[in-house]
């Protein structure tokens, strides 16, 4: 059996309405308890493997999101949680909403829902763990790697 690393989450609220945020938090509490799989909600981007973003990104959070993404070490996976993070949702027509976090950073997994249900989110995290392993393998095999998943891309890493 292969040992695997516990995936740590970083959650960022990019102008969401709180509905998805409390569901992200609820999935770490006793009813859903993702911590039993070793998933910990960390506050530090440098410790995180998976970035969970909620909300449709406005102009002020854009830079913060980019910074958080660039501070996370490779390999990393981005989950767009909730319909606003996927494509803007009900706020798509608002003047200050960019509409979907894939307008700012590459997204690997889309989890729709308004608000996103913890079950769906956990499913997304399980998929992210698999993806994380694949990305890690790919990084091992290539001196410099560039892995593409859908429209997501990992920047070139030179060893």
């Amino acid at each position: 059996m292969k040992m695997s690393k516990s995936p740590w989450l970083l959650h960022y609220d990019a102008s969401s309405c709180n509905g998805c945020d409390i569901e992200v938090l609820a999935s770490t509490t006793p009813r859903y308890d993702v911590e039993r799989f070793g998933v910990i909600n960390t506050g530090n981007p440098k410790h995180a493997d998976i970035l969970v973003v909620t909300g449709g990104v406005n102009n002020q959070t854009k830079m913060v999101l980019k910074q958080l993404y660039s501070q996370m070490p490779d390999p990393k996976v981005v989950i767009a949680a909730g319909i606003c993070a996927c494509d803007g949702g009900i706020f798509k027509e608002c003047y200050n909403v960019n509409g979907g976090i894939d307008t700012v950073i590459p997204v690997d997994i889309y989890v729709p829902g308004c608000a996103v249900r913890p079950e769906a989110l956990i499913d997304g995290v399980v998929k992210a763990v698999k993806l994380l392993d694949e990305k890690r393998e790919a990084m091992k095999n290539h001196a410099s790697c560039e892995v593409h998943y859908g429209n997501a891309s990992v920047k070139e890493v030179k060893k």
Partner: protein
Amino acid sequence: MGNRSVVPFGPQHPVLPEPIHLDLVLEDEKVVDAIPSIGFIHRGLEKLVDKKDFNEMVYVAERICGICSFGHGFGYCDAVEHIMNIEVPKRADYLRTIFFELSRMHSHILWLGLMADAFGFESLFMDSWRVREKILDMFEAATGGRVIFSIVKIGGMRRDVPNEMLRDFLKSLDDIERDLEVIIRTFLNDRAVKGRLCGVGVLTPEQVEELGCCGPYLRGSGVRRDTRKLGYAAYDDIEFDIVTSDDCDTYGRTYVRAMEVLQSISIIRQAIEKIPDGPVDTLVKGFPNGEYMTRIEQPRGEACFYVKASGKKFIDRLRVRTPTFANIPALTQTLRGCELADVPILVLAIDPCISCTER
């Protein structure tokens, strides 16, 4: 005089799930000044009245905030109903009261959990949220949604809740009350918890009045004011007392919120006992024409909804004054002169809902 330094707090911070940025000016460990900068969740929601008609705006209003979602939907509907002179059926009024109080319970328990997390009492946080899930179960059984459930509409409720289900609610409430007893006892009597809450962020009744605070923050300083006493929905027929505390500090605010959860249970019990049978919605004809301002008591305090319409499909203006906005001056006031370690507790004490404030 020590060295001055500036510590940035947020927008991404482990304690707060929401982005707010504070520049904390420190003198050694003491905070001398706190400069908030906002705009991280501004979406421009009020402007959506141009693009969504007055019925669709209910969904938008509900998404002002995901925690007090029902209250926002209700406030908007109430304003439009007043403009259009719609008489809401009695049963719908009672159902609205029940859902409103359930929302208040889930919001306050959520806050208690986050507060426990802020002072590092992880198991109390987990326990509070375990209890909160039972309330979400009730939402899910009645509406299908967990946090945003779109059950309120202009003219009444989107669907009825059968009487058998309401009786099941009573059983769940008994369970919740039993679980809450342990949690509230820990919050109010535990020495370690009291050590972090008592005497932190003291504001006298005169000060809170002057700063224009609202909700549990105001009542935590001993001011008796609760918008529910205006008697909207079915609050007229229900007996309840305004919870206040004379402690004037974070402990007092915690006490008010904890007691309000128990009070909500009693309000729901009374409402379920008195609820009449009958339809839950009325036919809505025509378009709104006129203006109205509704005041409601959200879990975080008083919220105002101003709607202006001119007989068209799209309303002219929706303006929301949310409770957190009223409490931010008090936050910056209490932050001045506090210890750096108390900052998360003081920020949480106002129960900040940034997405309400910035919309």
